[in-house]
């Protein structure tokens, strides 16, 4: 089980801010493929990975990073703070 969080338009497109997901995905990319296969709203949110960023346990990471030991995955668009 892994906590998956969504922010900004990713959250709006998927329709929820977080969920717990049963997964055996080895990498972030594998998890994304699993999510895409679920429902159209996930496929839409993850259609263009260049528009997305990912954090693993609150650290910016990359789509090919392994998920072993990770408890929290977050997907969001490029940040616009400041």
């Amino acid at each position: 089980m892994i906590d998956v969080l969504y922010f900004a338009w990713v959250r709006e497109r998927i329709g929820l801010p977080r969920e717990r997901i049963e997964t055996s995905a080895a990498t972030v990319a594998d998890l994304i493929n699993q999510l895409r296969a679920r429902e159209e709203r996930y496929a839409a949110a993850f259609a263009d990975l260049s528009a997305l960023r990912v954090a693993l346990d609150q650290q910016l990471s990359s789509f090919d990073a392994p998920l072993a030991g990770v408890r929290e995955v977050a997907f969001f668009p490029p940040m616009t703070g400041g």
Partner: protein
Amino acid sequence: MKVSVQSAAFDLGAEVAAFTARIAGAGAVVTFTGIVRPDGELTAMEIEHYPGMTESAIAGIVAEAVARWSLVDALVIHRHGRLLPGEAIMMVATAALHRSDAFLAAEFLMDYLKSRAPFWKKEIAARGDAWVVAKDADDDALKRW
């Protein structure tokens, strides 16, 4: 060092005065304040963030600035939630022995807060709401450092 992520408004004058009062030894203080620009039809700015990661990401950025420019002190305040045009979104303050270090550290903090701290801005307007899109220039700005 002080990092605050908050929904409440902050008192810029009081923060600057308090920061400057506690930086014994510094010769230079630089502050930056970001304000919601009253832009045509904009009625509000909604700022979403990632509680937990926001604080640790900012703390990491501040620690790097302090080490790199030998800062006497540094401060970051960043708001989230609904802000009206003219309200201050955030501020940074840097205190150093010399002015170039204080300036460089403040610019570094701003460049990194802009594209490495997990905040997302949404413009609320009569014509419809729109997420602010990150600019390539924001990422390019990091190459300077």
